[in-house]
């Protein structure tokens, strides 16, 4: 509950580092990322009454930030080329999951009750590190799809790629994230430490 301007300010500042990291995953440019976050935080501070009664400060700020990032995507992606060397090793990584007859080499792990998982903040910390470990282009497109919630057409337009490219890259991103989470969250037998990352 926001009781005063100082409290709001402090809460927003506490969120800043994580918001900057998320912005960086998409904009790949520190200055742009920091500006986007700064703009979002200022937008909240200038009109604090707009937030009143909404579900959560984080959700509200994140929503504003997403729009700022979308606005800045055009600037950030102009000089970026898709790195096709990255592509080949990714395809091999996917192929390696399957036997010649098309079955999976290993049974995917049972991840248990999703609701329980999503209630744990530590899970999201691990997810964030997994996102940061993605190759640059893969991270960007995944964030555009799953965090900014752009659709395929919008993504293809922004990145100047075909739909087929986009779908393959998203598939690769998901496979990688699945493996990272498997290793660092669902697979760990004892209390989690970030040491394995």
């Amino acid at each position: 509950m926001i009781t005063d301007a100082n409290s709001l300010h402090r809460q927003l500042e506490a969120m800043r580092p994580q918001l900057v990291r998320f912005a960086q995953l998409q904009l790949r440019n520190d200055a742009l990322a920091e500006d986007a976050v700064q703009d979002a935080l200022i937008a909240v501070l200038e009109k604090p009454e707009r937030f009143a009664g909404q579900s959560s400060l984080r959700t509200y700020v994140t929503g504003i930030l997403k729009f700022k990032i979308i606005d800045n995507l055009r600037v950030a992606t102009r000089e970026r080329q898709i790195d096709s060397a990255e592509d080949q090793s990714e395809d091999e990584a996917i192929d390696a999951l399957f036997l010649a007859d098309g079955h999976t080499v290993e049974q995917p792990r049972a991840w248990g009750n999703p609701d329980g998982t999503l209630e744990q903040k530590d899970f999201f910390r691990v997810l964030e590190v997994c996102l940061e470990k993605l190759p640059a282009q893969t991270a960007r497109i995944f964030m555009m799809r799953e965090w900014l919630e752009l659709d395929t057409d919008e993504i293809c337009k922004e990145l100047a790629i075909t739909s087929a490219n986009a779908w393959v890259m998203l598939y690769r991103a998901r496979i990688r994230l699945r493996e990272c989470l498997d290793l660092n969250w669902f697979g760990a037998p004892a209390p989690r430490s970030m040491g394995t990352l």
Partner: protein
Amino acid sequence: MSGLKPTCKEVHRLVSEGMDRQLSLVERTRMRLHLAVCEACTRFNGQMDLLRRAMRQGPPDDKAP
């Protein structure tokens, strides 16, 4: 379409693509029939579901002190 029955490799890909585009009726049917009998792909589907929910939902809110 590769054969009479889709493989796990094909269905894994369809599960992912189904998150980004509308699958055709044929694709959707092949995928669903395979999922009904395949634990591996069903688990993968669940994993993808969780991943999407996690990204869209974000972490649980801090409890107010």
